[in-house]
């Protein structure tokens, strides 16, 4: 350090200024870059820490959640549950029984699975349905609870005051045998 001090102080005024300027620019550029990267890294570390904490919470609760999940389907009869094919077939049967127009439609089944059970859902659409027929169809679904249920319900009026357009999301439970 003494040598550096001697070197610095022995420079002429202009050289001292230039040296200072050079080091100041280097410190500003490097310092700014390092500070930016530290800030970025710090956010990343913090985010990862939060994610890991969330994961740890879930993993800590694993045993209880799995026990709850088992308990949720414990009292359900696997034979009465509906896989995607049975869900579609049952909807058709119920629609026919409730005298819904034959041009109803169902979208592809969306399934979510665990080791012990699955939940399937499908969007059911029917046009120009009478209120009575819709009511019968609803009653049929209610009869199949808790193996089948409605999660979303939407009706809209049509030009014919006695008819409705129907849009339902029907959900079914499938218990693994």
């Amino acid at each position: 350090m003494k040598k550096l001090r001697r070197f610095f102080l022995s420079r002429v005024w202009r050289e001292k200024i230039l040296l200072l300027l050079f080091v100041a620019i280097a410190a500003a550029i490097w310092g700014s870059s390092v500070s930016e990267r530290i800030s970025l890294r710090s956010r990343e570390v913090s985010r990862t820490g939060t994610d890991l904490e969330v994961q740890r919470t879930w993993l800590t609760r694993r045993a209880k959640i799995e026990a709850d999940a088992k308990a949720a389907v414990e009292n359900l009869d696997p034979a009465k549950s509906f896989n995607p094919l049975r869900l579609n077939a049952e909807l058709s049967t119920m629609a026919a029984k409730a005298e819904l127009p034959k041009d109803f439609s169902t979208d592809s089944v969306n399934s979510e699975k665990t080791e012990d059970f699955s939940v399937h859902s499908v969007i059911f659409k029917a046009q120009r349905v009478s209120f009575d027929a819709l009511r019968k169809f609803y009653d049929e679904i209610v009869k199949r609870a808790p193996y089948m249920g409605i999660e979303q319900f939407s009706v809209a009026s049509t030009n014919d005051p006695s008819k409705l357009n129907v849009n339902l999301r029907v959900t079914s439970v499938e218990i693994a045998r």
Partner: protein
Amino acid sequence: MSSSAATPAPPSPWPTAAGASDESATDRVVILPDARFFVRTLSVDPAATATQVAAEVELALETLSPFPVAQLYHGHYWQPGSSRVLVYAAYRRRFTAEETERWPSADLVIPAFVTAMGMAAAPATTLLLVAEDSCTALHWSEPGPVPTKVLIEPVVDSASEEERARVRDDVVKGLGGRRVVTAVTETPIPLGTDDERDFRFRLGEATTRLAGASAEALDVRDKEELAALRRARQRDRWMWRGFVGLLGVLLLCLLAEGAMVGIKAWQSRRQQTLVAQQPEVDRIMRAQSLSERIEKLTTERLRPFEMMDAASQPIFSGQTPSIQFVQVNATGLYVLEIKAKTTVASEVDAYQSALRRHPAIANVAMPDYQGRGGETNFTFVITFRPEILKGAKPTAQP
């Protein structure tokens, strides 16, 4: 240090030299030949301040010197409380431009004998400094840092050893013929110091130290130039501090870079853990979500008809007969969104009031209301009370 004169040399009054000559110290100090200077010891008030002493010295020089003070290089040595001040001066023209070339960059410019100042010399101490071109004698007859008398006798270059010895004897005689004399034949050598404020010198085998605080008085250079130099040094010190500070920032950046490399490796391991755990966490979350859905399907169900019954009661009871539902959405287990229209705008408010009075309804919000060409379109978001809704049986017709 060597001894001369009739008796053996007494023990040296100074500390033994320690530390080698330092190149930077040599650059910092310019030592001038004693022969160019005339020296006087003046009496001063011991209670005087350094500024007062400096003023007295200038006044004394005006009377002592045949030249104006402005044409002199001069300095003085005084210590607070001392009743003596040693004044030395030289005519400026006795120094060539080559000789003064190094002065601006030096920290101290003094005659050689000044390096012996500041020594705690005991009374009756005489020091003889023998140089190629002069012989200087300093004598302390009384206690105190300032010599009582200083004699400088020039010696010509061509002088023989006998002639030089005679000059030495003359000088000693000039001091009253001291019998005990400590002689130094080597040129004083500046030494490096620990704090770089004080000035240390090797004088023969001894070391002497001049306090940095007294340097301005000791220095023979023009006092205004010295002041300018001091200001320049002050500025340089600040620049150096700034330079060191910036170097510190660069060092911190370097350390931060190193730390970031470590953090990156650690973070990478955490990311790997995160990715490895995610499938299991997803499975648990899915199990939780699905078990909740099954729980809802088992214990609770969407009751759109029961909610529509409650919402259409004011219409069928004749309170708001003109209202017609356009669309009904069950957006939650206990929330119904109704888009409706009417040709009687006043019935909207009546309808809302009727709904609010219904025991199964907890809240009615109207996020949208538009009137156009005699027809009013509006949207109600109705929140039901679960405990009452669960007990209701669907009966109504739209």
